[in-house]
């Protein structure tokens, strides 16, 4: 055997050993340690920020859902209809005819609500699981929801105000309304009325 092939053989053996040792360290011990921290200190977050009603899981506060019917606030259109086991957006640019048609269709569908739909109402999110809408989109839907449920507009608007979250730490991100939490509050209001 020549010296160089001997070198390559030795190096490969060292590579194999060190690869396996590092795999145990960062592929087993590290994720297990983070998992342990999650179990002990952040159980809710680690398991998906689940939302329960009467002890039954009805969703996650981080995941949007598909809402049908005038009695609910609707989230943004989703490329995957909020299935949860797939994620992603339309990937269409504004210059694409298919995108222009989709936006026109959304404008048409939202026309009965009156007013100018905000951007999030006319577009799809990146994840297809966006749990939020803008406060403007919630307010746009409020009259129709109030009517469908026989509630007063002011009551519904108060729910929106309560559900509106400001920017994180006052400056990060955007104002938003969590649709699942808003609809749960709505259901509770209707139920107790």
């Amino acid at each position: 055997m020549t010296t160089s092939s001997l070198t390559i053989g030795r190096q490969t053996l060292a590579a194999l050993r060190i690869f396996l040792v590092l795999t145990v360290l960062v592929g087993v011990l590290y994720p297990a340690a983070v998992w342990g921290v999650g179990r002990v200190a952040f159980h809710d977050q680690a398991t998906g920020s689940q939302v329960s009603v009467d002890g039954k899981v009805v969703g996650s506060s981080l995941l949007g859902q598909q809402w049908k019917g005038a009695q609910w606030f609707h989230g943004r259109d989703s490329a995957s209809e909020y299935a949860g086991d797939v994620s992603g957006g339309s990937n269409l640019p504004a210059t694409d005819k298919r995108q222009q048609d989709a936006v026109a269709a959304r404008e048409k569908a939202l026309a009965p609500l009156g007013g100018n739909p905000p951007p999030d109402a006319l577009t799809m999110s990146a994840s297809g699981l966006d749990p939020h809408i803008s406060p403007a989109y919630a307010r746009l839907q409020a009259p129709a929801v109030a009517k469908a449920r026989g509630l007063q507009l002011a009551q519904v608007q108060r729910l929106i105000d309560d559900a509106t979250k400001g920017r994180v730490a006052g400056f990060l991100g955007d104002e938003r309304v969590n649709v699942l939490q808003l609809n749960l509050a709505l259901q509770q209001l209707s139920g107790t009325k």
Partner: protein
Amino acid sequence: MSEQVSGLLTIGVLVLALAAVHVPLGDYLARVFTSDRDLAVERAFYRLCGVDPRSSQRWSRYAVSVGAFTVVSLVFLGALLMMQQHLPLARGASMDWHTAVNTSISFVTNTNWQSYAGESGASALVQTLGLAVQNFVSAAVGIAVAIALIRGLAARHTGTIGNFWVDLTRAVVRVLLPIAFVGAVVLLAGGVIQDLSAPQTISTITGGHQTIESGLVASQEAIKELGTNGGGYFNANSAHPFENPNAFTNLVEIFLILVIPFSLPRTYGRLVGDKRQGLAVVGFMAFLWTAMLVVITWAEQAASTSPTGAMEGKEVRLGVWASALFANSTTATSTGAVDSMHESYSPIGGGGALTNMLLGEITPGGVGSGLYGALVVAILAVFIAGLMVGRTPEILGKQVGRKEITYAALYTIVTPALVLVGTAAALVVSKAKAGMLATGPHGLSEMLYAYASASNNNGSAFAGLTADQPYLNLTLGACMLIGRFLPMFLVLALAGAFAAQHQRPTTEGTMPTHTPLFSGLMVGVALLVTGLTFLPALALGPLAEALS
């Protein structure tokens, strides 16, 4: 508070945090790679693996070690991906052979291009034991090679450039692991999941059904960003609420992406014994990062005056500014994670992300690869300046002779050749074209983006392209492999050539490489090389789309 003020404050906090951290972290990195003491755990490693930590390698031996480690990584990860349906926690996940080839190359080369969807293509076991391990070690290889080049520049006629196994081990144990752990806990607290139970299907209050996914995401998310890897646990990557639940975690992730690449110039300055040298390099990186941030943010802001507000492919909780900041940072490094869909960006916004990659990802670039890429630009800059004034080009007392400039020039043309030849070939192959979402200028951008992303080891995509087919999987795989290791071996050869030289004394005639003027020269060289190479392609893609 207006969107603009919020956006500017976000950028301000990020820049302040990076400015505060890059000095201590850069100094720490310098100590890590010069210390002659091993931690107890490292000594156990070396004994177990039969490595003599005190031996220093010549560049050729160092390159053989990198190659051997790569081959072992490729074989192990490829086998894991091919066998995943027979292993525990499979839950129906499987891959075609060509997808597995593409994916294993992708993660070993620090690219993390994904032609599979995370939810269905890779099992929890494979993600944690295969993909996340490569997120650590591929990043460590990048850091090791950058350190080797610095050693070559700083060496006084020694001929050796360090020990790869020691550099690899220390990069993982002393740098990536502790920072990733802290990052993972912060992300976990912010809402990123870390759970091994099976995904559950729940009934919603309207009687519908939804799957709530699970997985060891927080631990993988932290190293995905810190190691500038970018491969998402889920298909939607950092746009998925389980990977990036809110605007705070978004900022943390951007910070993790940038923190090591922006700290390594300081390490460079320390190791060559002149901190100003590092400052000149970080100035070059920061200038171009800022300039491209202005371009992308401006383009998206301008687009947001339309009724759709540039919100297609963006999340409400993040908004336009933070998304543009993420897009700029992920493409200026070799990360490729996305918190918004780049294909839905305005032509100039998406073109800006593409340009970041075409610059060669040196602003600040991937962990390690960004620094060695920037140092090659510095070598080109002293060479061109030397030609202009008629002096022998030198950097840090080392002559840039025929051998050195040949390596640097070859380094510079490898990726552009892969990008342009790869894109052109794909556009005449009907099977590749069948995967395209768009036609016209945007279609060209889509394909150009794919080959730019693969060849520069970025991994982000104009994701409308359906890349999971043999032609694209194999050619993009080849681009990733050549685009990673050919430049890397050229850098090691360069390190060896510099290490063999004596250090020449600085004279009146030596061109200083620590001044703002030199940073400017580097900016000029980077723009010139990229412009000459890619302007025709950019004109037919993003520019044509913007003007039409």
